[in-house]
């Protein structure tokens, strides 16, 4: 019985993702009305389940070539996980360090400009930021003849590009920074802080060992929000910078057409497999970021 609730939760979770992948088949327009194509949709689900055993659910086509999902997924998953984990770690550590280094109570006025700039950046949607950064690189190239960064992926460069990393890092960084400041302000008046200050504990120890640990606890509760922001950005970033990751694969191959950039064909099995892999990517990212916070805590308590 202990495992029944998580099992039911996981089953419901998978069913919702299956239902989502079915939407392009389930709803069709006939004679100007939206109709539900339930029989055909259920047939696709049945085929997918039976195909798991005989391997046909893993087969997909890209152009005129047929591929096996299991053979190619590690390559795409590596790119997506890299763009989730690296910026996530950088964002969390950076936000924690910047937020705590700044005295949260005494320097509110002095850092007004920084706060306003960060708030303005955070208010920009990811796709706008991606376009603005790409435009900036092109403008600099036109004026100076110097190419600062690569604006989209090509096979001659590695998979880690500066611009998508910046876009992916910025949102968790600013979110963590603001959260650390808020939490630090809240903690600074707590009785254990006042007591430690009265006992003559050094400022550095107060800030890192007392306030820092308390702040890390509140960061842990906000992790789902941070990962949710990153999961939204990864779809836009991979598409905008043409990164060979899972989400771009979804939009360019699962929704593909006879010509580049077209949506006239839908591969249900591939879309479902990618969405399930994205769900796995969410939990892996969450685990990586939880480990990052645990490492930060150990560093704050023991090393500093």
């Amino acid at each position, binding site marked *: 019985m202990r495992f029944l609730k998580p099992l039911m939760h996981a089953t419901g979770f998978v069913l919702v993702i299956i239902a*989502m992948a079915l939407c392009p088949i389930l*709803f069709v327009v006939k004679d100007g009305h939206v109709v539900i194509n339930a029989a055909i949709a259920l047939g696709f689900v049945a085929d997918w389940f039976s195909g798991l055993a005989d391997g046909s659910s893993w087969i997909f086509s890209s152009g005129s070539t047929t591929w096996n999902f299991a053979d190619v997924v590690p390559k795409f998953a590596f790119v997506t996980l890299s763009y989730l984990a690296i910026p996530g770690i950088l964002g969390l550590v950076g936000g924690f360090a910047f937020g705590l280094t700044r005295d949260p109570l005494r320097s509110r006025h002095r850092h007004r400009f920084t706060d306003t700039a960060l708030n303005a950046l955070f208010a920009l949607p990811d796709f706008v930021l991606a*376009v603005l950064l*790409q435009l900036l690189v092109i403008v600099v190239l036109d004026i100076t003849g110097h190419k600062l960064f690569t604006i989209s992926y090509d096979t001659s460069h590695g998979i880690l590009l500066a611009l998508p990393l910046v876009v992916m890092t910025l949102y968790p960084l600013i979110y963590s920074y603001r959260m650390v400041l808020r939490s630090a302000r809240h903690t600074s008046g707590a009785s254990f802080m006042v007591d430690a200050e009265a006992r003559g504990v050094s400022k550095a120890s107060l800030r890192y060992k007392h306030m820092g640990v308390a702040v890390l606890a509140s960061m842990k509760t906000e992790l*789902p929000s941070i990962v*949710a922001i990153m*999961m939204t950005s990864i779809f836009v970033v991979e598409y905008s910078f043409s990164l060979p990751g899972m989400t771009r694969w979804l939009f360019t191959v699962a929704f593909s057409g006879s*010509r580049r950039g077209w*949506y006239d064909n839908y591969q249900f099995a591939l879309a479902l497999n990618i969405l399930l892999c994205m769900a796995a990517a*969410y939990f892996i990212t969450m685990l990586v970021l939880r480990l990052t916070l645990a490492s930060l805590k150990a560093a704050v308590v023991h090393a500093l």
Partner: protein
Amino acid sequence: MRYKLLIGGVCLIALGFIAVFPGLFSKYPRGYQDILRSIESSDGTVAWRFAPEAPSDTYHFGSDNYGYDIQTRILWGLRWTLACVIIVALSRTLIGGAAGVLRVLVFGVHGSIRTVSPMAVIPSFVFVFFLLYPMTINSPLGSLRLLLFQCAVMTIFDLGGIISSISLKTEALMKTSFFEGAVSCGANRLWLAKYHIVPFLATDLIEAFATQTVAVLQLVGRLGVFSLFVGGTIMTLDPVMLSSASGEVAGLIGQYRGRLQGAQWMLLYPLGTYLVILGSLRLFVSGLHDQFKKLDRTYY
């Protein structure tokens, strides 16, 4: 911080006016297209101009590859963007607000909605994309019916946040002495909702509406990146392209996103317009938030 509310409000009123009367500001009629034109100079020589044309006195924002005036497209497309944003934000606020109150008052469910759901794992705009994809591309529904369908789909997603926050505020109201007093006097649920909850949630609902406008604008922009445009996507064979049926502003960004190098005006003007709308909404939301914070809300 009243200046934020003032500037944001004035900008939004101006944008609303332009959206209602685009013809007053547009040099050309809706859908104006001129792919090739000739100019005769004073000495009698004739020069030919091909689309796309850079911004000039003839086309203030330039023209696109197919000779459409960018300014005309933006002016006529603005109404679609604003209509979608307002309809979805209003529906979310009303439905989410009502569900939030009912959840606590009628069904007695307490606490915020906190589970790891597929909605957290897969972003809501991807859910919306999957639902709208079969309807939006070369839609037989017609732009207006499609807009309403798109708004309905966008409303369903992201309701959880509003329901949760309104539930929590309703819970707080139910612990106040005036509410308990009304219950002791035998007030029924309808009376309680009408006189002791909804009036006190008004500021929260207005704030939620304003916040949702920003969220919807971002959602529409993200869908535009993937060529799913408000009002419909037209997929043509010759020439090969996916274009916005309505010319909605976020859709134009998606349509001209490839114009990073060469003819950048095609991307820059829709992007600038989108940022003006977003900036106005953000200022208004921030100003409204500051204004409401000043109000005395001791019942919490």
